[in-house]
């Protein structure tokens, strides 16, 4: 069984999406040129989600990747809701009041976000009312709290993450009279999701990360080569600080059982996540909710299973780590990707492949004949080979697709091997997850001219 190159392409390109920030009068005032995103499923259905939106009431753009586990419900909910929580957290008091008054008097609401979605990125219609009510409660509290201070982006991101996770937890505890919704909120709460979200506003780039997805900045050095700068820390067993933190939060007696086989309580790979109430609620609460819940929940062995050595919950938090970075003209792009990418590729390679793709320049050593004896035929062969290597770069119109092609198809020499790519993509559903994880990638391209101009102004 063998996939032809067009078949491979149609699989790779099925979920690709590109957005270009519109230019007005040829003058692009945004520091973001646009972004490319794509997903390649390994799970059926895919458990990764992605979101991108422009904040309409404040400046800036939001982009995020979400890696779900134990189902996709939590990742789906976070992908729909998190940006609203962030946007609301960023809004000034007057705008919040205006919005609340509009809702109160039944007037049209100011749009908060402009979404940039692939047709496959759906929103749940059934839950929108429920989600909206929770969000409204949040902004009402923000109005009451009115600190009068201007909103700090770091603060806003942290608050939004925590608040959404809290709402997910509360909705599951309260339940819903509608049985479909009731089951939905429980599935959301009992599954989990990591989130890696970037907020770009001018030269200010904030990355809020919860879990083991990763944000990486592609930097072009003066000599034209590419290097990678991490803008997030993985929250998993490989991160000493993270292990340290978890241990600090629990009694010494649990030290040995907290992290086993590189997993939290021997079960969970990411050390921070949305949902996953099994790692957050007390045993009593879990039992009560499951018992009163619908039958489907009761039948599910996973949800009923209580993690071993479960003494002092919560063991898990959705609080993100936020890194702030001032963009420089040499910062050409940002890659947000779920761990499916980072398992297969080193960030340095990611920086090079995307950088060369975006600039259209393939950094090959120039050929010089010098004193060597080279015939026309030999040179022709050499050049043909080099051209073939370059042309693979231009097969893709989307940087994320290009990266996936490399992630899945790279041979030991770092070149895309079609045969390997074909094999990896034609694996049967049940086997695919053994060889690769869901991969979700967003590549944001920056406008160096705007960034340079902003820098000069400051």
């Amino acid at each position, binding site marked *: 069984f063998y996939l032809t190159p067009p078949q491979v392409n149609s699989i790779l390109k099925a979920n690709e999406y590109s957005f270009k920030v519109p230019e007005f009068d040829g003058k692009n005032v945004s520091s973001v040129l646009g972004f490319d995103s794509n997903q390649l499923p390994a799970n059926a259905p895919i458990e990764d989600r992605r979101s991108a939106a422009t904040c309409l009431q404040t400046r800036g753009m939001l982009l995020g990747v979400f890696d779900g586990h134990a189902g996709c419900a939590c990742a789906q909910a976070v992908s729909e809701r998190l940006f609203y929580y962030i946007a609301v957290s960023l809004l000034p008091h007057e705008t919040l009041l205006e919005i609340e008054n509009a809702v109160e008097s039944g007037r049209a609401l100011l749009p908060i976000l402009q979404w940039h979605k692939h047709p496959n990125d759906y929103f749940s219609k059934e839950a929108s009312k429920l989600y909206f009510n929770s969000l409204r409660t949040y902004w009402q509290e923000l109005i009451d709290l009115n600190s009068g201070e201007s909103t700090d982006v770091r603060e806003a991101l942290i608050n939004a993450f925590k608040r959404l996770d809290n709402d997910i937890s509360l909705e599951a505890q309260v339940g819903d009279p509608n049985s479909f919704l009731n089951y939905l909120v429980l599935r959301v709460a009992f599954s989990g999701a990591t989130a890696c979200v970037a907020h770009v506003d001018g030269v200010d780039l904030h990355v809020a990360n919860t879990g083991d997805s990763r944000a990486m900045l592609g930097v072009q050095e003066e000599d034209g080569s590419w290097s990678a700068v991490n803008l997030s820390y993985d929250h998993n067993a490989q991160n000493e600080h993270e292990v340290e933190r978890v241990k600090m939060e629990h009694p010494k007696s649990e030290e040995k059982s907290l992290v086993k086989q590189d997993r939290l309580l021997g079960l969970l790979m990411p050390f921070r996540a949305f949902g996953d109430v099994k790692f957050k609620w007390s045993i009593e609460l879990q039992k009560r909710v499951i018992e009163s819940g619908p039958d489907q929940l009761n039948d599910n062995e996973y949800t009923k299973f209580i993690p071993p050595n479960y003494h002092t919950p919560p063991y898990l938090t959705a609080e993100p780590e936020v890194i702030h970075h001032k963009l420089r003209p040499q910062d050409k792009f940002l890659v947000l990707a779920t761990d499916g990418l980072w398992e297969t590729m080193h960030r340095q390679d990611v920086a090079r492949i995307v950088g060369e793709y975006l600039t259209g320049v393939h950094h*090959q050593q120039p050929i*010089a*004949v010098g004193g060597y004896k080279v*015939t*026309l*035929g030999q*040179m*022709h062969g050499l*050049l043909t080979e080099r051209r073939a290597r370059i042309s693979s770069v231009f097969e893709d119109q989307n940087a994320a697709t290009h990266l996936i092609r490399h992630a899945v198809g790279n041979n030991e020499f770092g070149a895309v091997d079609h045969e390997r790519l074909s094999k990896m993509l034609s694996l049967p559903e049940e086997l695919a997850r053994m060889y690769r994880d869901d991969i979700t990638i967003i590549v944001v391209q920056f406008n160096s001219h705007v960034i340079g101009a902003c820098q000069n102004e400051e």
Partner: protein
Amino acid sequence: AAGMFLRLLSDIQWRAAHPKWRRMTSSRRSTSTTAEPHPVSLPAQAQVVICGGGIMGTSVAYHLSKMGWKDIVLLEQGRLAAGTTRFCAGIVSTARPVSIELKMAHYSNKLYQQLEQETGVPTGYMKTGSISLAQTQDRLISLKRIASSLNVMGIPCEIISPKQVVQLHPLINIHDLVGAMYVPEDALVSSANVSLALATAASRNGVQIHERTSVSHVTVQKGRVTGVETDRGRIQCQYFVNCAGQWAYELGHSGEEPVHIPLHACEHFYLLTHPLKEPLSSSLPTVIDPDGRIYIRNWQGGILSGGFEKNPKPLFTEGRNQLEIQNLQEDWDHFGPLLSALLRRMPGLEALQIMQLVNCPESFTPDMRCIMGESPTARGYFVLAGMNSAGVSYGGGAGKYLAEWMVNGYPSENVWPLDLKRFGTLQSSRTFLRHRVMEVMPLMCDLKVPRWDFQTGRQLRTSPLYDRLDAQGARWMEKHGFERVKYFVPAGKDLLDLDHSKTFYKPDWFDIVGSEVKCCKEAVCVIDMSSFTKFEISSTGDQALESLQYLFSNDLDVPVGHVVHTGMLNEKGGYENDCSIARLSKRSFFMISPTDQQVHCWAWLKNRLPDDSSLTMEDVTWKYTALNLIGPRAVDVLSELSYAPMTAEHFPSLFCKEMSVGYANGIRVMSITHTGEPGFVLYIPIEYALHVYNEVMNMGQKYGIRNAGYYALRSLRIEKFFAFWGQDLDAFTTPMECGREFQVKLEKGMQFVGQEALLEQKQNGVYKRFTMFILEDHDTDMDLWPWWGEPIFRNGRYVGKTTSSAYSYTLERHVCLGFVHHFDEKTGEELVVTTDFINQGEYEIDIAGQRFQAKAKLYPFSSLFTQRRRKDEVELSGYQRE
């Protein structure tokens, strides 16, 4: 100067002893160490200073000194023949589509052939011949067209079959060829040595040559060159010649009064190999494979092969200090496609060893033609540059024409296609040049079909109606930066895409233009003709009238409100410009001339109008939008819009009046259409353009008005036998030669420029005659279409070339316009052309080697066109420009 000459000779001898002169790194060093720095001090003054010691500069010096000018200084910033000249491939090829370029190359070839004998300097001249290959039928057609022009010039040339190609050059793979053109007298030279030979001869004639001397700028006072500043001091001079090659643009901009020389350099690569096992003969013909984008010549037993890639690399956009020519990198990846083409053409070369990939920048111009002539702003400032990689082929001829220009005031041939004044400041933006040359360089090899347009550097100058017209399906072409409509594609009709509409046969817009023409004949059409050059000339007293009466051949002392068609002639009676002049008042005139006259006409008048503050001339081109209403119902549309009677009794032909149209006032309405059809041109202040256009279109609805473009106009004017300047008319054509005696008033009571020459012609007759040809046995659907430049045969003998052609939808025949000469059958001497000579001949037009019978006419078919109109309504004296 003697020391200089000796050093030159030693240099040349050194080169001769070391035939591998291209490996210059060592040679440059050794010669520069032996050379004394600046052995001779610069003179304080000279008649002429030439900047640039490449083939252009040395050729100009050579020819000037031959013509008797001796007080000449040639300055070279580095060493003689060290720039592009040193690196260039040395192919002298006469196969050029533009007639004047062909003549230059032909002269160069003859010059180089005897140069070694004349100067004693070996030039490496070798007559090898050249073979231009055709991989497609269309390419073969274009080669056949060139072959026709070469043949009538007496240059041997043959269209040959692929089998004959192999006989001429055994290495060529012919399986993908449909034919080829063989020019046996094409040659190879060492271009650096040609340049040194020219310098040697010039130096013997008294030209002083100074190397390692850089010109920093040229000083100009009161519009005249006064001297040059160099890094070694100042030289006063009356003439300056900018032959600085790719630095010509920068040098032109270095002075206080910039001289715009629109050219831009691109990297150009060619390959040198070691000799073949059995070294190639030095007499093996040069191969040009335009479809493969490459040329291949023999070189020291091996080959030299370069080409013009699709993705050129422009350089020096930011100026000269960016990179030294000598340090340019080889770029094999860039050369890859050309190498593939080479191995496809000569598979036997696979095992041939590479010696070097040479990166040799060449300068290119916005229209692929070289630049020569005098600056429009600084008299005495001459330019010769922008050779589009054909410097060796043009060098001799271009130098000769420029020298003639300087010495005699004008060259011996019409060089308007190459004249610097065809450009203005608008072509001198670096961005424009960079983008345009990236299109021009690949075009060197692209097939050029009739009516092709440049795609880059567009939408620079537009009419205020551009968007409106575009939305209605306008297809655009460009002239002097101005976008003009070719025709309108009706909604829902799909034309072939650009690549497929390229044809030598009947084009896809045939029916579209046909319906526009029909509408012009039967109802009314509107054509936006805003691109025309428009000047206003006025004075406080009679100075304007007096000056114009002197500069123009027709009588301009007409009642206010009259329009006069007149030539602006040179001393020989030739057309420098052809215009319409309206007398707006006693003392002010409104002058309309062709689009590309903006720079030339301005300079011509500026240089000749008296320096008098009471006389003003203003370029108002940008102030007016021109709408041409053509057709029998134009009169109805306009009278309804203006509430004024527009019939011939109230508004006769060739009349001009300011009136209101719609709400807008101050519209200059002229009863001319440039086509011979009835109608009006409206000159509208630009802020009213949209309003007037909308009014005209709305009112015109009931009369069947529609938009039309220049192709319709062209068809109309050619079937009416209207000549236009720049194509049919040039500085070597007089009114007498094109049936326009009625536009010349020899007895208008005062002298005018060209009067004597015209009187002489009136008495003694003319040596060529503008003639209209109707193709008889030409099948519009099946046969190749005429374009221009097709040879005309009378009774089987060559008598001239066509200058323009169009399909006449009225006659349902092709019409060609062209000049008929009378060459003496034995001596070839030009004889007087009489009406009888024209009328008593059997004519044929040669289109790409195929001859079609043609009927010659000296007057238009009046009967065909006047059926529905009274005779006095016919515009008798129209003219037309495109």
